[in-house]
């Protein structure tokens, strides 16, 4: 199976969409869709299908120039609809005649149509959908590129995007066959599974029963926030944290490229060197790169031993090109690594990591608190400080009331009172909470406290059951066998660990407690895949596994799953609502005030 099929399909759909609105037209793009569309189709593709100008949808612009036909390609949001309605109304008032088409991605929402109706533009527009759901970022990676899924579903309890996830899974299985086994871990995952089943009911079944994906795991983000907050230690995750990888594209600044101009680079398995090092622990990077440099040097030395004209022709024709290209790539990766080291040097990374690892291990509690206070008092990066505060709360299953109050007050003093809102959000998600005092719960009796129901952290019990923090000090970072290597052996991401456990044990027996702590573990197993980890006959498709992260995952987790695949001989495809980092994650919850 080739995930690029998805891209091809999307391209066809987009082409139909554009052709069905004939003649030359302008396209107004939602900024959020720029990168995804770039990956799926590209500007030339749009131009080939009658698009003359491409605008970026910007708030505050009351009207746009352009030709007599315009297509809006946007996410279905109320504000966006308002902007569009403003455009249309202003342009009509100016006497401009134009036909408009609004394409909502991935689907139209009732509330959006309502806004367009109440703004009085319905007579002037047509509405359509472009089901840009999962699209490939790499040969083993699919994304919806919908970062707002997290806040929308987990913070605001809005289920609107569940439909998109379910529908993307349905469409994926229409393409690659219906997977016999589905596991849902967590509450949201169960909902997605149920909605997916409903969708299958309303469509007629494929006659073809073959399938290319044997098992699907749907995993809720809220089963493991700890892994989201840990400092990344592998190359790809570090690149994302330091520079930001957007739809597989990375933007290096002039310092890294060395020419002062900076460069964009596509990071996929097409880049041979990158494939080798993306999952490397950072401490192993330089030795690997040294080896590669040596190899390249040997290749280059060949030019001194060229015996015949044929050799020379061969060298110039083949080797030289590869050599030049590889050299360039290697140089970029080396300078990127150096830049990462330099950035880490600016913050007191060692102390920070020590505190983080102590928190995960549950030791040196007093020192950890002192360190966090110190971070606050010296007005150290608020994002990094919040990360440690949340880790402290999660690993201790809530801070004591005194600690909570002290940290909160000091944080507000250091970084501004607007963070009262930030603190509330973190509490609502269960990321930064105070332990319940038995006295107050007695006073309230059994009556449920109205208001937010805080999700309790189960760190200690989960850790005990799954062995998330390995005991042995010596984790092999070079030839890793433990998933925890992605965090230098300090922690194992729960989703990855659970996937490994279920796949290798092939049973859920013994995981009941873990399932309960994760908000439910549900399995729909149609094919018993006994001994799939053993060689022999059996359907090879059962070894192809899709893991879908609801609410985003990090490259650390993707790397851990790649290790699961490698250790046990699976092919694992990761699908996610978005790829995130601990900083982006915290940032999405931080209240920002323009000063």
């Amino acid at each position, binding site marked *: 199976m080739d995930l690029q099929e998805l891209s091809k399909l999307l391209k066809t759909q987009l082409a139909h969409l554009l052709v069905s609105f004939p003649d030359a037209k302008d396209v107004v793009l939602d900024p959020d869709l720029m990168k995804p569309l770039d990956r799926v189709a590209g500007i030339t593709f749009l131009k080939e299908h009658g698009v003359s100008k491409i605008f970026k949808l910007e708030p505050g612009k009351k009207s746009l120039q352009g030709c007599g036909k315009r297509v809006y390609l946007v996410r279905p949001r109320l504000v966006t609809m308002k902007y569009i309605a403003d455009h249309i109304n202003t342009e009509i008032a100016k006497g401009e005649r134009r036909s408009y088409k609004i394409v909502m991605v991935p689907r139209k929402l009732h509330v959006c149509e309502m806004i367009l109706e109440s703004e009085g533009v319905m007579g002037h527009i047509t509405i359509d959908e472009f089901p840009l759901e999962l699209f490939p970022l790499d040969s083993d990676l699919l994304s919806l590129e919908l970062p707002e899924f997290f806040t929308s579903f987990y913070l605001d309890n809005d289920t609107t995007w569940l439909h998109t996830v379910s529908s993307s899974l349905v469409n994926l299985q*229409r393409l690659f066959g219906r997977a016999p086994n589905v596991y849902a871990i967590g509450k949201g995952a169960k909902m997605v599974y149920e*909605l997916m089943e409903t969708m299958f009911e309303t469509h007629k079944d494929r006659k073809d029963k073959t399938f290319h994906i044997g098992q699907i795991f749907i995993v809720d983000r809220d089963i493991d926030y700890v892994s989201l907050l840990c400092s990344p230690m592998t190359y790809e995750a570090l690149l994302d944290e330091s520079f930001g990888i957007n739809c597989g594209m990375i933007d290096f600044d002039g310092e890294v490229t060395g020419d002062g101009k900076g460069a964009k680079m596509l990071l996929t398995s097409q880049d041979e060197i990158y494939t080798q090092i993306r999952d490397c622990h950072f401490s192993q990077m330089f030795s690997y790169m040294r080896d590669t440099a040596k190899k390249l040097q040997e290749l280059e030395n060949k030019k001194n031993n060229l015996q015949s004209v044929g050799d020379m022709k061969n060298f110039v024709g083949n080797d030289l090109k590869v050599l030049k290209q590889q050299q360039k790539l290697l140089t970029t990766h080396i300078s990127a690594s150096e830049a990462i080291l330099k950035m880490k040097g600016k913050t007191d990374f060692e102390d920070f990591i020590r505190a983080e690892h102590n928190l995960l291990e549950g030791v040196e509690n007093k020192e950890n608190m002192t360190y966090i206070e110190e971070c606050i008092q010296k007005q150290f990066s608020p994002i990094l400080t919040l990360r440690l505060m949340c880790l402290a709360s999660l690993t201790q299953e809530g801070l004591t009331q005194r600690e909570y109050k002290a940290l909160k007050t000091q944080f507000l003093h250091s970084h501004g009172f607007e963070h009262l809102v930030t603190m509330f959000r973190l509490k609502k998600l269960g990321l930064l909470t105070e332990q319940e005092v038995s006295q107050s719960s007695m006073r309230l009796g059994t009556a449920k406290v*109205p208001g937010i129901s805080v999700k309790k952290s189960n760190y200690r019990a989960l850790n005990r059951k799954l062995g998330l923090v390995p005991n042995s000090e010596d984790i092999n970072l070079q030839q890793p066998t433990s998933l925890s290597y992605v965090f230098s052996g300090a922690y194992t991401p729960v989703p990855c660990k659970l996937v490994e456990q279920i796949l290798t044990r092939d049973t859920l027996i013994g995981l009941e407690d873990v399932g309960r702590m994760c908000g439910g573990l549900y399995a729909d197993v149609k094919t018993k895949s006994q001994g799939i980890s053993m060689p022999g006959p059996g359907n090879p498709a059962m070894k192809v596994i899709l893991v879908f992260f609801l609410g985003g995952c990090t490259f650390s987790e993707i790397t851990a799953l790649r290790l699961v695949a490698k250790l046990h001989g699976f092919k694992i495809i990761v699908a996610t609502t978005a790829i995130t980092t601990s900083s982006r994650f915290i940032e999405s919850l931080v209240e920002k005030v323009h000063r």
Partner: protein
Amino acid sequence: MDEDYFGMGSNRIKKKNLFDDDVSEDAVRSSIKTSIVDKDDISFADHFDPGPKVSESNRSHLPKPDLSSLATPASKTRPTLGHETKTLSNAATFGGASRAIEFGHNRSHSLTIGGGLSLAAPTLPDTQFSSSSASLQSIDKVAAASPHGYEKFSASSTSLQSIDKVDVEKMQQEIQSLKRSLLGAKKDRWMKQPVEDTLRRILKGEPFSLEMYKSLADKLALLDQAVSLHDGNAIMMAVLFLQKTVTRHIFTRELLQRPVAANHYLDYLKAHFDFPEYINTLILLGRTEEAAICKYQLALPSSDVAVKVSKLKDCLRSHFQADSALSNDASLVQEYVDLLERQRPIDESDAGLEASGRSALFKDFPRKRSLIDMPVVTTLYYCCLYHYDLGENSLASPAALRKRHQISDKQFIWTAIGARAKLRQWRDVEAILTTKGWFGSTKLKAAIGFDKVVAILHRNGAPPDILQKYLAMIDNLEQRLSFAKKVSCQIAVIDALVALKNRAELEQLASKLDRYSKEGLYAFDILNTSTIKWK
């Protein structure tokens, strides 16, 4: 690939090719049928620009239409039509039918059934239901949900010229069968569909109608089943339908029993910037903390301090102080108000002073930005920088600020040392770190640890003799040595090596030093002393 994968997409393509020569009649018929079954398309044409351009071009490009043959079937259907819709007045029915005949004049229109009928359709509701504007509105709404009609029409009108070849008789039959299905569809349109069917349509993004769910039980069934589907779009639609069609009292009552629905309603209100209703609903749901936070959040963006303060006070009174569970947050909001009220006069007078150019301090260390709305700690730094010596009863006094916000010793030391070191006021630094012991003795003490003190001083460019003084206060010798090296204070390194009795390293160091520099002399002096017991 599965045929059905495209869903609506594949239909659309079919429609577009309707009038291509190579499309078989059967295909045309079936696709026309399917398109007409989409009953809601009927009034869609209502919504698009009547487009004189289109009809004109039709007229000019097409041969004169065959009037008589097409008029017949339309008039034939007239009695049936009247029969089917008994409640309608005869005249209205006639109007509708005759309109259809009128369109029959133009062959192209009667042939492009999908488009032609949908053009005729809006006249029906116009004449027939002019009394019930409510249902009309809902037609609009439903029609709005089906975008395909327009597209279909524009596509078909572009390929009109190829129609001539089609047999007229067949077209008549076609018209009749389509009229029948249209009537059937019209009838269905006014029948209540099972809730499951409607929800399935919503789930698939197909046109649907909610208006026939008149009973409260139906409305709630719609809502509850939408909730059990887990589709936010459907839930939102059911919630808003309920909200529009029942009294506020009933709506609230039912919402309170359905937390999932309530969450979606809240999300809608938030996205709609309807914050008064958002906050009200939260309070009704007993989620007072969220209500308070929302109100607080709304006060934050105000750029005018006076406005902001009054908004914060309002929010404090009506929300934070009204709930005893929020007392912690209430005191924080109160602190915020006090901070803003303190910053305003300080900022005003300092800005004036700086502009006047009379103050040397502001000239040497110009203010980077207004003090307004800076965090407490930043304000403390500011006050330590510019107003260090003010008495405690002055607004800008660091001590007063410290007292009001109960700033901890550690925090005060971090900030005050930084500010005084920036001004190179080493005496003040020493005074901050000096504590009085018993019997009037004094000693240096740093709650944050002297290693941190040294780091702050070094960052602010403190000279070696100052650094040396505080390096000497680091108790842990190894640490003292490493810090001395870090801030490259040679005298302190030498002292630390002596304290560690590490002669080997000292000799090594001395060999690197300039023999006659201050440090060099110091090092060799020590190496030559015989009283030290080396390791």
